[in-house]
């Protein structure tokens, strides 16, 4: 018997343009799927919007306690409502950054669909990126709602370059997505009990200045505790976004946090991809790819 010739069904599959088209087609497939699945739970979507409005309203009333009490040391907190809303909007986005990738894997594992998805000629990284796309679309929408409701109902004003703020958001999300890849690797091997989600989720809210200025950590908890905030990328991301949107600072003034985020990205991106590759190989070796 003779060997079969290698037959490439799509001869130009690996050519640059075609692979981009294929990637976009696949991302679209996941987006359409997730939109349809979300639409099959319309009430949940609607209730999320209502809950954001309730949260914004609650913070509006809390902010009224602090009228006239703003400490001049904390320039970003002159309007506490604006600081909280940017903090909440950005935290929501960051949380998506590091949790959606692991959730994408876990969701498919629990539904039992991961195996059938992985039977198609699609790489696992593409599956993870594509299946978290809808999470990012939703996060963008809900984060926008925090800012929009503040502007529409409670007279919150933003200034500065939205493009620069967007650059910060994008960069921080990419850094957090690297941590998300580590988290996804953990989910692939250990299935449950992801430490990244626990530490970064609660840690970001506490140490990144979402609800209060990070300087207060030094004042009340000491420099050792406050140093935690300095190793969290979300601290730099949030600081940069607030400087731009609330203080109206330009590129030259926010260069430092931008550089720190770039360093985080340069270190974490190759490391997380390396860990992820090892996790996939391990799961395939153990035959536990679809277990949860």
């Amino acid at each position, binding site marked *: 018997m003779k060997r079969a010739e*290698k037959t490439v069904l799509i001869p130009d599959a690996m050519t640059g343009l075609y692979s981009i088209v294929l990637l976009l087609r696949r991302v679209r497939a996941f987006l359409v799927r997730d939109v349809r699945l979300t639409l099959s739970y319309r009430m949940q979507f609607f209730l999320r919007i209502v809950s954001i409005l309730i949260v914004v309203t609650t913070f509006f009333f809390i902010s009224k306690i602090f009228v006239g009490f703003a400490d001049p040391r904390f320039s970003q907190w002159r309007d506490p409502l604006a600081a909280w809303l940017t903090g909440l909007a950005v935290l929501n986005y960051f949380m998506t950054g590091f949790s959606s990738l692991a959730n994408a894997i876990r969701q498919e594992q629990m539904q039992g669909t991961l195996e*059938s998805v992985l039977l198609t*000629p699609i790489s696992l990284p593409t599956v993870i990126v594509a299946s978290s796309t809808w999470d990012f679309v939703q996060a963008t929408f809900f984060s926008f709602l925090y800012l929009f409701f503040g502007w529409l109902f409670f007279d919150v004003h933003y200034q500065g370059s939205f493009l620069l703020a967007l650059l910060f958001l994008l960069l921080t999300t990419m850094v957090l997505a690297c941590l998300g890849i580590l988290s996804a690797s953990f989910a692939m091997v250990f299935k449950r009990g992801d430490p990244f989600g626990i530490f970064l989720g609660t840690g970001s809210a506490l140490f990144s200045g979402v609800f209060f200025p990070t300087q207060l950590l030094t004042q009340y908890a000491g420099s050792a505790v406050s140093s935690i905030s300095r190793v969290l990328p979300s601290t730099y991301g949030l600081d940069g976004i607030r400087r731009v949107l609330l203080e109206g600072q330009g590129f030259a003034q926010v260069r430092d946090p931008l550089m720190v985020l770039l360093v985080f990205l340069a270190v974490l991106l190759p490391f997380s991809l390396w860990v992820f590759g090892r996790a996939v190989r391990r799961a395939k070796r153990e035959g536990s790819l679809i277990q949860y």
Partner: protein
Amino acid sequence: MMSIDSESIESATRDRAIAVSVDHISKTYPVSFLRLKRLFRRRFKPPVEALRDVSFEISEGEIFGLIGPNGAGKTTLTKIMATLVQPTSGSVSIKGFDSVREDEDVRRQVGLATAEERSFYWRLSAEENLMFFARLYGLGEAAAKKRIHDLLDRFEIGDLARRRFGELSTGNKQRLAVARAMLPSPPILLLDEPTRSLDPLAAARMRTLIKSLATEGARVTVLLTSHNLLEVEELCERVAIIGAGRIRALDSPENLRQVHTQTERVEIIFSARGGTKQEAELRHLLNDDFELTAAVRGDEWVLSFSREPLDNKLDSALNVLHESGAVILSVEAKRATLLDVLESYENEESRENGSHS
């Protein structure tokens, strides 16, 4: 391993190229975090050896059966071929692509249909599910829609296209699974119990479809895993019997039966009105090779025995019955089935396990 050289099989497959080559595949599922468990002196189950040095080849357009008891290694082997599990050693080549190094290329060549219902999105319709997977395969919108409608019509579930997957019957879910495997028109189909939940008519139509896939047009190579041995006998050119992770036998169903057992079982039902006297006379004339039992109905009796092809036992039995005045009602010869062959290997396996323990 019992291997049979059969000239007919050889000649039938000689001219066809090899579509699938499984070369000395072994798979042992390792113990997770073994070092840690040893360090903390935690108990752990020994590693599971799912496949041991498995080798075979499947020709283009061949329907190849894989049978064996539960836990024999069928699913592991299928998953290795579908690139979902990596072998511990050995290699699998699908249309010339290596299943580990060129896994994406392999997945372009292979469609896998399992009886696993949870592999679909239950809140999406049948059509939406297929469209999602068609896009993952890289099919364009128009081509995907046409392909989906063709497949749904072919599997006679076109009218259920817009129904949610969760609302479909088990049989229709299974048809959809096969339709999904065929979406990208793969040259190799891995079918895991494709007729398990189908009614007899639908199962027959599915078998006809599988047969036509391998014989018509661009001939599809099929690896069929099934517990329905009649189905395997009907469809497969060659069958591999797998047990305890090893290929125990590999040949055409006919050859497997012949090598396994040369004999056939003959059962003669006859009417004897002579009562106990006639029974005693018959027992006197027939030796211990023959088994005589009273049938459930009235004065009917059953005479059963094993015979080699072309021996004179059947003639002797018929003569004796004729001389005793019995009226022969029916004569049935039963050849060994794949079930018998499988059972014999299972028995052999338990004997081996018994001798090892």
